[in-house]
């Protein structure tokens, strides 16, 4: 069975705030029955102060889904909606002393239920850009959908490319056969054939004095600024959330978020960044930050 932390077990065996809140004025329902995890979050928000006075959950799911739901309600009770929205799935996982990589999606589900509930309260429609595939790389918790998108967007050809762009396969290497499977499929759809001995993409391998992190962030901001008019013309926008080593996390907002083209747009931004900065940069939606954070945590 899973190696759950004591905190996870405690929240599972003694869940807090189980059940629907009476007189709730914010409801979020997210999850996927086919995947076996779904959650309804009910909140009672004080209309004058915007403070979450009560929170309750109803969850169909495994031990970590129930524990994530329970801990989420504990975290957000007493917060204002704006503060609650800042709670990331990583915060949820941290509060549980971590989750196994296969189970990180349970914390993502918690955060999404919260976003959905807040949107419901504010009379907005919450849209989800989240798509999840089978977990391929267990070391870095990268799923098939993410790999496939990156292969399409960046015209990746080799396992090494995939590792460079997504980190998948960079650990124990046991998933290389699965990654090759994805490459074979996508390359076939592109009308190419997979060649295990092909040279990895080299366009971005530059030998220059490395940038300091501050320089890097400044340059990234400049590039995003230069791209912004174009994005806004399409009714969208982009915001830099965090830069960790050579990875830039961005929030796609407006028409860009969740749209079919988001992945393509991100790829375009990545390409432009690499050209300007002259080094390998990876651009990842901030919503996927957890996947990499797990990696950092071992």
């Amino acid at each position: 069975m899973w190696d759950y932390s004591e905190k996870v077990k405690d929240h599972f065996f003694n869940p807090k705030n189980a059940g629907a809140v009476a007189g709730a004025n914010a409801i979020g329902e997210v999850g996927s029955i086919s995947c076996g995890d779904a959650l309804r979050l009910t909140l009672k928000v004080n209309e004058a102060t915007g403070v979450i006075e009560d929170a309750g959950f109803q969850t169909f799911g495994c031990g970590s889904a129930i524990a994530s739901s329970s801990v989420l309600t504990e975290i957000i009770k007493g917060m204002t909606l704006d503060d609650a929205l800042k709670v990331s799935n990583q915060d949820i996982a941290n509060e549980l002393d971590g989750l196994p990589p296969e189970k990180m999606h349970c914390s993502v589900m918690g955060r999404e239920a919260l976003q959905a509930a807040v949107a419901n309260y504010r009379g907005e429609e919450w849209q989800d850009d989240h798509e999840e595939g089978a977990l391929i790389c267990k070391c870095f918790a990268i799923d098939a959908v993410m790999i496939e998108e990156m292969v399409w967007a960046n015209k990746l050809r080799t396992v090494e490319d995939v590792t460079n762009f997504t980190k998948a396969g960079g650990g124990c290497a046991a998933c290389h056969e699965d990654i090759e499977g994805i490459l074979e499929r996508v390359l076939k759809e592109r009308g190419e054939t997979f060649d295990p001995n092909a040279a990895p993409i080299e366009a971005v391998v530059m030998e220059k004095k490395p940038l300091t992190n501050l320089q890097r962030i400044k340059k990234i901001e400049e590039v995003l600024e230069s791209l912004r008019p174009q994005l806004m013309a399409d009714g969208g926008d982009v915001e830099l959330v965090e830069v960790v080593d050579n990875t830039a996390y961005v929030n796609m907002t407006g028409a860009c978020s969740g749209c079919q083209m988001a992945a393509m747009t991100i790829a375009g931004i990545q390409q432009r960044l690499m050209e300007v900065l002259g080094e390998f940069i990876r651009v990842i939606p901030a919503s996927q930050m957890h996947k990499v954070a797990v990696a950092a945590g071992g």
Partner: protein
Amino acid sequence: MSDIYLDNNATTKVDPLVVDAMLPFFTEQFGNPSSIHKFADGVAKALKKARQQVQELIGAEHDSEIIFTSCGTESDSTAILSAIKAQPNKKEIITTTVEHPAILSLCEYLEKEGYTIHRLPVDRCGRLNLDAYQKMLSDQVAIVSVMWANNETGTIFPVVEMAEMAHAAGVMFHTDAVQAVGKIPMMLQDTKIDMLSISGHKLHAPKGIGVLYLRRGTRFRPLLRGGHQERGRRAGTENTASIVGLGKACELALEYMEYENIQVKAMRDRLERGIVEQIPHCFITGDLNNRLPNTTDIAFEYIEGEAILMLLNKAGIAASSGSACTSGSLEPSHVMRAMDIPYTAAHGTIRFSFSRYNTMHEVEEVLKVMPGIVATLRKLSPYWDGNGPVANPEQAFQPTYA
């Protein structure tokens, strides 16, 4: 209360008599059976005896039809790969949608290599349609591989009849009998089954020992080539202690065959009836009239299996689940999907599998805690409202994204 083990389809405890039979082969009789000195003296004889004990349990005609392997998975792979290598012109394989991954993953791999895989579907009770099977048989088919009994539901397939049909069409027939051997009486010499897989750890022998039964005269290509062990059909120095253990386990399985089908079955039936009577909205999956005597697989609607297992584990009870979460995949068990069990039930399936070591007292203990466990989780479920499921569960709760 000591812990209750109801996960015998996953693996079983090694019988103490099996351990006793094995021990001398680690320390005293440690010689290589191929050597010519007294350290090896008894070893070759012991292997022969074990071969005969296996032979007797499955009713094989000759003891040379027994090939020892390292596990059930190796036996399955050997059978299928042998059939396609021995008949390179035949590019089709027939199997079912509910096989163990030992067969299914291999078939997926062969599919990528250009083989055509026919996967027989099952109905909601997990049964095959033999007319559909008949239509798939042709001279293009290298091998049929159909499990004797399903590891999740215990459903038994009519493999003896299916082997006859394959034989009539000139097609080789293999059965993964890992779950069936020791629980169902067999007389292979009266059948047309060409190959059959056994795994020791499912019948109170150790893990890491298996058998491939290979009917005399069946064309064969070894998976492992090297020394002359197993008459050149499976090279590698024999796992002597485990082979001796498996032999003993087969002897015991034969002795307990009646007990398995009467007493063990009675425990299973008592548990099943007790659960269905006490707990609303649960049902037994598989072919109720045609199952292994030791297995029951029960779907508890509106709750999820891993959560049930965690609460059972806390109560000292070991079972297993077909839920996605226990395997780390996103889909519930392929067996449940193949039977078209709705997602709200498929994720909540729990398999209880018995052995001769269980007692009726243990069944009563499980019956005491099970209703509370299910009720606890249903209280948390968005599909549940007070004493029953919400009206129109699929409409009442519609989470975003599917």
